């Protein structure tokens, strides 16, 4: 019985990203308001989905400087989500108003199963 459960867990771990097993998937929000990203610097765990919402009366975009992600144009109240699957520091900006910049710091998941 116990080995069977263990095998099932192992199977799950192989099918899903490790963080999905270790802890529930998390999500964070970034507000685009007054031509700024708020918070401008956000730290999340690997596997976190970040959603940007444009609350300005002017369209904006969310564009990674390393091309890791890039939204379509976001009109007022439009949203864009991206799930960060790898650790690292991700700089991004609005490609229409490039003085608008932000950073998502993605940390390796902790408290989950130890890396092999």
């Amino acid at each position, binding site marked *: 019985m116990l080995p069977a459960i263990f095998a099932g867990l192992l199977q799950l771990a192989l099918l899903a990203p490790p963080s999905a097993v270790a802890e529930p998937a998390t999500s964070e929000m970034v507000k685009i308001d*007054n*031509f*700024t990203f708020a918070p401008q610097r956000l730290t999340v765990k690997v596997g976190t989905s970040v959603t940007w919402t444009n609350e*300005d*009366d*002017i*369209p904006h975009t969310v*564009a990674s*400087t390393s091309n890791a992600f890039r939204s*379509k*144009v976001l*009109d*007022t109240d439009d949203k864009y989500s991206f799930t960060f699957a790898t650790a690292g520091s991700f*700089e*991004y*900006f609005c*490609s*229409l*108003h*490039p*003085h*608008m*910049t932000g950073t998502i710091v993605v940390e390796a998941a902790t408290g989950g199963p130890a890396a092999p």
Partner: protein
Amino acid sequence: MTRKHDKPEGLSRRKVLECMTWAGTGVLWTVTGGVPRSLGLVGEANAQAAGLTFLQISDSHVGFDKPANPNALGTLEEAINKVKALPAKPSFMIHTGDITHLSKVAEFDDAERIISQARLDVHYVPGEHDILDDGVKLYGERYGRGTKGAGWYSFDAGGVHFIGLVNVVDLKAGGLGNLGSDQLEWLENDLKGRSASTPIVVFAHIPLWVVYPQWGWGTDDGERVLGYLKPFGSVTVLNGHIHQIIQKVEGNVTFHTARSTAFPQPAPGAAPSPGPMKVEDAKLRSVLGIASINFMPGQQRLAIVDTPLQG
């Protein structure tokens, strides 16, 4: 100096800018109802009826429907009606970008339907709102014929050399407007061999000089353009993007930004952000408008007259 606390801070800054406008230009201005207007020059130009007159419209933002102006198409139409009613037909019109708000086909169609009623040739440059998602494709199909790169070009009219530049493409994180090395190289060649006495008019969407970098109001490699233009005795730089009149004269170069036909934006630093500024409904048309530019042979400086839609 005392500051009146019963008025929003933006108002006093605005006044300062109006004074700057007044001080920085050869045009004779008066301030009526808080809005600077020129005195005499229109009449003078009519009386002499010589030289070259062209119009500048900018930042139509067709498709914009937010509180700052729920009907941007309507105010564009009012601007074009003003053009149609001019006693003397101008030679042509330039549009300094942000024709549309969201680069939609229907917005381009609506803009064309209204602007074409002026029955004038229109020379366009794109704003960042005209090249969303699909890049310069839609804009290029309509306005890119005979242009280079992302849509830059030059032409001659009435003894003046006109240069349309594109500074809204491939913007860099943390930066301002951007022309890029290909365009600058083209510009250098375009000016090569031209007589220094040729009056030059350069137009682009984002101001080519740094107006207010905190809001991205400037062009990173704009200085290079000014370097190439140094030998020329008469240079006029016409921009849009900031939805208000700001003028500066530096040596032989006159810098001027036009009003939008859609909505005003705050004076630099006068609000938390450069977003659309909501003014009283009755005031809206006094902060929207078009510009008329007159070149008289033999005169170094072109006369720029800004006319609001109303007031």
